[in-house]
């Protein structure tokens, strides 16, 4: 496609009729520079943040961080093991709760829901709105309903249910997109051969949509891993010096441990916070890399 974008550039062939000015106007060059600068400011900020955090946390980025428990009196011995294990527990449970629910909801909305019915439109609108509800409000939901009304208290399972509800819209949106990308010829072919609707979904559509669903699910979980605000209300901030061993045990997670260290006045804790941030970012980087790998390796272009 010869894009009209090239109008400003002089034609290479000297015999050709010149359609545009030979030189780009100053305003054009300036505008292009302004656009590029805006993009680059964001990227410079990102690089500065990463470099700063790694440099600040470097002295404490060693085995103490994942082998030791937190210690308020002796920062040189403090570690984040309880927080790392807590994060693994909470994330595992969140994945168990929100992935099946989100994927089933997505199947319903893509394959079954009749868009002319008001209740299906309500579900749709409601999901859009939930995606933009502040995360701290989910903390209120967790505190008022799950911890108090359901009587689960401020435990791991409360945190996992709350985070599941928080990232559910993300899982649903990603899964719906993956399901929608499966061409309807596959669906029609399966139905024409006499498969029932569910057989078609289970044997044809889901296998084809799995890479997209997996990618979206990993990204949703990585959002849950970094989330701190709702857990502040759910008792995660308490001093914890043991690993969780059941669904109802007390817990802390990495973002909350980081927040707790940031609030301490001593310099050593600031360094610890930076070191723990490096670990958190490394986990997120790993998850995102896996998501990108799955997408590039398995995703089909139809």
């Amino acid at each position: 496609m010869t894009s009209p974008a090239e109008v400003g550039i002089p034609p290479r062939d000297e015999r050709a009729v010149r359609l545009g000015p030979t030189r780009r106007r100053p305003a054009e060059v300036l505008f292009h520079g302004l656009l590029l600068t805006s993009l680059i400011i964001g990227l410079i900020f990102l690089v500065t943040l990463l470099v700063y955090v790694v440099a600040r946390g470097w002295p404490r980025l060693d085995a103490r961080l994942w082998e030791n428990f937190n210690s308020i009196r002796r920062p040189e011995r403090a570690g984040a093991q309880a927080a790392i294990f807590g994060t693994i527990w909470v994330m595992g449970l969140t994945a168990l709760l929100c992935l099946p629910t989100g994927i089933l909801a997505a199947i319903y909305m893509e394959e079954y829901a009749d868009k002319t019915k008001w209740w299906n439109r309500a579900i749709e609108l409601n999901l859009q709105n939930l995606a933009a509800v502040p995360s701290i409000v989910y903390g209120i939901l967790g505190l008022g309903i799950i911890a108090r009304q359901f009587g689960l208290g401020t435990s791991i399972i409360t945190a996992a249910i709350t985070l599941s509800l928080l990232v559910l819209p993300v899982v649903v949106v990603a899964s719906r997109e993956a399901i929608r990308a499966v061409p309807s010829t596959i669906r029609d072919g399966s139905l024409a051969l006499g498969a029932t609707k569910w057989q078609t979904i289970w044997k044809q559509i889901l296998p084809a949509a799995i890479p997209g669903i997996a990618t979206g699910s990993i990204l949703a979980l990585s959002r849950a891993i970094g989330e701190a605000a709702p857990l502040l209300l759910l008792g995660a901030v308490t001093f914890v010096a043991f690993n969780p061993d059941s669904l109802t045990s007390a817990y802390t997670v990495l973002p909350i441990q980081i927040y707790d260290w940031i609030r301490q006045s001593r310099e050593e804790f600031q360094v610890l916070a930076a070191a723990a941030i490096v670990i958190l970012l490394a986990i997120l980087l790993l998850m995102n890399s896996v998501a990108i790998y799955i997408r590039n390796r398995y995703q089909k272009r139809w």
Partner: protein
Amino acid sequence: MTVAAEQVSTASGAPRGSLRRSRPRYGELAIQAVLLLAALVSIGTTVGIVYSLIPPTIDFFRQVSFAEFFTGGSWAPLFEPPTYGFLPLLAGTLVITAIAVLVAVPLGLLAAIYLSEYARPGLRKTFKPLLEILAGIPTVVYGFFALAFVTPLLRGVWPVGEGPAIFNGLAAGIVMGVMIIPTVASLSEDAMAAVPQSLRDGAFALGSTKMVVSLRVVVPAALSGIVAAFVLGISRAIGETMIVTIASGISTEVNWNPLQAMQTMTAFIAQAGSGDIPVQSFDYKTVFAVAAVLFVITFLINALSIRLVRKYREVYE
């Protein structure tokens, strides 16, 4: 056609050649019910949020009048004697959101124009995911960065007077603005991508330069989507919690000066709610009442944003 076919089948006495299935498939119906149940979880979430907010909020407003809450200029519910004037929280939220929007809207929109109209496909494929990383960084990390890096930097380079305090709204607002750049940029870019190529081609054919096409054709045509992106950015700034909890401090009085400490609605909820507060205490109800106000505000803003997005989709898709 169908009438003729039916007549044939009745005439021959054989069972009707109906394309409908002969008996209901109960297994399929059960599966559909399970799927619907999963979809209803999201409705349950909204109902749960509203249900958890209403009773404590009603209790709160039984003791504190609307007039005191919405016009009072002092917010010190955990002090003795307590005051319940909401305006300091509103001022803090407004100031920090305004700073964040001033950072995110120009940078996000210009970056979106670059990605949508100027960048070659290869460049776009590199830049866009890089920019999206900004949205994936946990907010507690941004809070740390605002408090430990941006505030000292601002204090170091501040030309006149005292400069920002240790806890201030400016650093929190700037960092929050950078955080929502990807939100503004990617929604705006979607809207610009939905503008038909024929509009651009027409403008180019009339001799417009690229800048003119971008600013006079593409941006106006995508305006409702771009405004939706701004609105969603505002909503995210109002609801953001960790950055302000860590970096902007506490203020019990109305404060419009971003160089000083200020408290937002979200920061109050996080700070007052993070202890183990007894259910029957008035502090608990206060936290829920502020959360109810926050929920209503963001709900209205989101509804506006959803409406705007639908508008541009209707026009071009």
